[in-house]
């Protein structure tokens, strides 16, 4: 059964990497909707760098989660990362991500024994718009530390543009993560019935896997539909084809 319902575990960091031909939006939406359906009071925080909240709302609506209501009630916090980063960049600030970190910390600043989910979508754009790799890596590191302190589960999303040649930022992010889920396109290109494949690896930050891992050779295929995604084992296609 994929994805494992336990993931992402509280106090742990899950790194999701994707490529342009196989974007991992569906995984993030799935995690968020599962988290909100699981219990009515578990807070979530969405730090969005590239996409606006309207898209999250309309996709959540298709899986019967009314995100707008949760946002209004304060259960789900939304931070528009660029609103904090752009002013700092324009003033030629030395630490453009500091304001963003303070905003995140402020949102998480409540005594909570409930399971909190923090999603950062996405880290790669921060590097592409000109923020130095060192700065982004430090921001990721301090965000991971903050989430571990608060026992919140953190999901980081990173776009891989050079598959097969991991770049500096990816290596740094991988060192911080407990699990690494990578979404890749099929090597035979796009298809109507299979949208891509997902694998789950153990990250360097955890010693032993607490959920069953899926290696790249036996990756699980998924197919995107209007209402979400379905997963099936490679070569089976039961319930899909």
């Amino acid at each position, binding site marked *: 059964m994929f994805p494992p319902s336990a993931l992402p575990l509280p106090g742990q960091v899950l790194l999701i990497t994707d490529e342009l031909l196989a974007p991992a939006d569906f995984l993030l*939406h799935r995690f968020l909707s599962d988290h909100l359906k699981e219990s009515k009071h578990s807070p979530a925080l969405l730090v969005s760098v*590239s996409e606006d909240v*309207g898209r999250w709302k*309309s996709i959540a609506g*298709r899986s019967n989660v009314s995100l707008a209501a949760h946002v209004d009630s304060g259960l789900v916090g939304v931070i528009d990362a660029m609103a904090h980063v752009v002013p700092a960049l324009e003033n030629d600030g030395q630490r453009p991500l500091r304001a963003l970190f303070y905003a995140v910390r402020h949102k998480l600043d409540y005594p909570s024994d409930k399971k909190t989910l923090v999603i950062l979508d996405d880290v790669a754009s921060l590097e*592409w718009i000109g923020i130095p790799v060192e700065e982004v890596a430090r921001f990721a590191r301090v965000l991971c530390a903050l989430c571990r302190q608060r026992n919140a589960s953190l999901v980081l999303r990173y776009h891989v*543009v050079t598959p097969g040649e991991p770049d500096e930022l990816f290596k740094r992010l991988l060192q911080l993560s407990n699990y690494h889920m990578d979404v890749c396109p099929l090597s035979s290109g796009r298809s*109507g019935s299979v949208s891509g494949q997902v694998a789950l690896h153990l990250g360097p930050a955890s010693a032993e896997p607490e959920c069953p891992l899926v290696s790249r050779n036996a990756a699980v295929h998924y197919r*995107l539909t209007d209402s979400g995604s379905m997963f099936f084992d490679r070569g089976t296609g039961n319930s899909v084809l």
Partner: protein
Amino acid sequence: MSAFKRRTTSKQPPLPSGTRPSPGSPATTITSSGIPSLDDILGGGLPLSCSLLTLAPDAHSAYGELVVKYFAAQGLSCGQRVCVVDSRPDSFLSECMWIPGNNVPPAPSTNASGLSHTTPAEDEEDERASEHDTKIKIAWRYEQMKQFQTTVQSTSQSTEDFCRTFDLTYRIPDATIAATRAEGRFIEVKPDENNSDVSSLCRKVLRRLSEILSSADADASSNVATRICIPALGSYEWGDLLPSDICCFLHSLRALLRRHPRACAAVCMPPHLCQEAFGGAGWVQKLGWLTDASITLAAFTANPYLTAMFSSHHGLVHVHSLPAPHTLLPPSDKFSTLRGLTSSGENNLAFKCMRKRLIFETLHLDVEGGVSERRTTPSANSIAAEAGDEHAHDNDHGSAGTQPGSVAAVQVQLEQTQIAPSAPEQPVKSAPPAEKTDTAVKKVKIKKKVGFISDKPDLYDF
């Protein structure tokens, strides 16, 4: 007496002119890019609040700019506001194509019924006439099937308001441009105005665009969509931009479009900026992530082999990302007939620029594997690589006859190491040298090469 009462239509605001709801998701409003086949690839049209990036890495042609011109012309002709970001917006707009026949543009409120236009079927036919000179004999059971379509048709009257039929041989009349400028529907943004600080040109342009869009939204009475056209992002008037500047600009442009959802944008970059030599590894992927829709028009202009192989097209089309502003899956996956994802795998796409219009088509190999090609020898690329060896053998002609066999063998080796690294030339029409057979050294069998000239009778024509 039935108490049936028709429910009043929902109180949704009327859509801006030139737009319609997307077939895949009614929440999305789409507008035409001016090219019907490109609209099909995008899933009906470009959604409002989305950005379209056209990359044209070929330095000898300007197909990317042509797409942006279509975008601007479509915006003007269906009553939308067009904002051109260029150092010479006037000359850009005056080069745009226009509707043939009646040169007066319709006012935004009236219908397009007053316009006369040649049906696209007519010029379609005179392009096809040259190809169909020989009637192919087909089996009787297939005679009823309709002809193989490589592109979408756009002649139905209902789509006329959505996408006008443009003709590349016509230009926008100056009167039209002046009229739209007077109405406030043509806005110029010049990046190099007030040559202040080059490094903040991008931010200045974004600020100006933000002002334009905010004032357009504040004007609640007019329900007009805005199109932003950037024909040459990063050209020399923008200063020396780094890849991160371009990424930041595209990222902020997309965020701006999301904040003002009645606008959309079409961007094109100069050829030298579309390549990995400028942006580093994975540059095209990064651009695909940073824009909603991005395509590459890879023209064949610089590559004679591809031009010969696909002689009826002018370049390949690579689709990197497609717009999906409210859904997980882009509507194009379900609704695009050109991409063909609903059937088996995805179709290869190509474009051709005919005299009157630009078309995107599916790319298929011809029946015999090529128009003027019969594969009796390895492909053209490997022939060119072996031409270096051929020269070695040719130079050996004189020496092989005079020297004794053992010395000739040594000389052959030397000749080969000298000549082979040089640049391979055109495949030379050469008969296999006859005196090679007497040397003791076992040589590679020289492959027979025939120059393919299509007007001469084919050697293998029985």
